[in-house]
């Protein structure tokens, strides 16, 4: 396996590790550069959705990934590799069955344990990615308004030192990126088999169809979710569809 060196910068507190990293000169930073914050004051989920995290209890970090030889149109491979690395990391640390809820949440059972926010830039034809990860580690209780959240500690029943969790993430990230480089086919298979509700009927909602049930059958080459209703299989972009719990 190709070694992937991670250089880590630790911050006591920052607005958002993604924003902090993005404000740096990405061209001069090495691939694998990582910013970790003990406390994110304004951690972001996708497009300004807030990511709630208590000080010092969870892992909030951002990785700079570049030079992976990915074209802008191939970035879905990156989402797959990163999702798989977090999935494997959580599974290793807890022994639980972990699933990837399309497109970017990591789930244990029906509860969310981690979320990803990937922001890409195209610099001189190369895809430069800032990969933000919010992983609930030692937070034991969650506010009433987000009941579908869990943490490593809740799943495993014990405390997890944050540096150890970060090392596990880095190890799995390097591993997944190596798989992505060597075999896109294996990456696709691993991702498909790790999908939340794969092969199962689930409730969804879309502006066009309202509330409906469909079977999750995979993702297509563009990363769209494939849902089967009767004989028909349709591909959905996120934003066109919502999971209903």
């Amino acid at each position, binding site marked *: 396996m190709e070694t992937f060196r991670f250089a880590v910068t630790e911050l006591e507190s920052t607005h958002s590790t993604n924003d902090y990293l993005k404000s740096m000169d990405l061209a001069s930073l090495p691939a694998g550069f990582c910013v970790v914050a003990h406390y994110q004051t304004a951690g972001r989920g996708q497009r300004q959705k807030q990511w709630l995290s208590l000080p010092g209890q969870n892992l909030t970090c951002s990785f700079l990934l570049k030079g992976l030889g990915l074209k802008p149109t191939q970035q*879905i491979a990156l989402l797959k590799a990163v999702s798989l690395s977090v999935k494997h990391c959580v599974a290793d640390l807890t022994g639980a069955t972990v699933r990837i809820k399309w*497109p970017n949440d990591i789930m244990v059972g029906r509860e969310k344990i981690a979320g990803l*926010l990937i922001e890409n830039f195209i610099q001189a034809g190369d895809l430069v990615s800032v990969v933000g990860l919010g992983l609930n580690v030692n937070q034991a209780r969650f506010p009433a308004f987000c009941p579908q959240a869990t943490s490593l500690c809740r799943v495993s029943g014990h405390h997890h030192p944050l540096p150890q969790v970060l090392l596990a993430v880095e190890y799995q990230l390097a591993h997944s990126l190596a798989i992505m480089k060597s075999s896109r086919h294996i990456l696709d298979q691993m991702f498909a088999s790790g999908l939340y509700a794969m092969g199962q009927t689930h409730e969804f909602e879309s502006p066009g169809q309202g509330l409906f049930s469909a079977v999750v059958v995979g993702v297509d080459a563009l990363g769209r979710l494939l849902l089967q209703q009767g004989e028909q299989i349709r591909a959905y972009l996120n*934003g066109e569809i919502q999971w209903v719990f």
Partner: protein
Amino acid sequence: MDIKQIQDLIRFVAKSGVEEVELEQGNFKLTIRTKSTGSEPSPAPMYYPQAGYLPPLQPSQSVTSAPTTAAAPPSAEMLAPSAGTAASATSIEIKAPMIGTFYRSSGPGKDAFIKVGDRVEKGQVVCIIEAMKLFNEIESDVSGKVVKVLADDSSPVEYDQPLFLVEP
């Protein structure tokens, strides 16, 4: 009827769109036919203003249109749209490098990256395209003035779909 009057009459008939006009005054008879289907210029009509007698114009000599007068209006009409296309031919489209949702600003309630009339520089972020929660800041590959925004904010865009029109 003198030559001047005949010429005027021919022009009038050509402009009017009437296919055929017959004129009879005593022993003077004049027929002017226009080729409604013919688009190629016919030979210039010939007149024989011999005393008291003017032979009818032969079909081959009939008037389609007076080249100077009839040709002018369509070409004037052609100019306006062709001037329009000439302008857009020099403009450059910034296209979507991927499928996804097109966002004109970095977040809800924030200012658009670029607006019509703005000057955009090569490498400047012009929009975000989000697909499967992968957020892509799209940079302009040209410098120039933004003349048109071709996609709606928060709407899905296809690969290679034009997003902005920029005049370099």
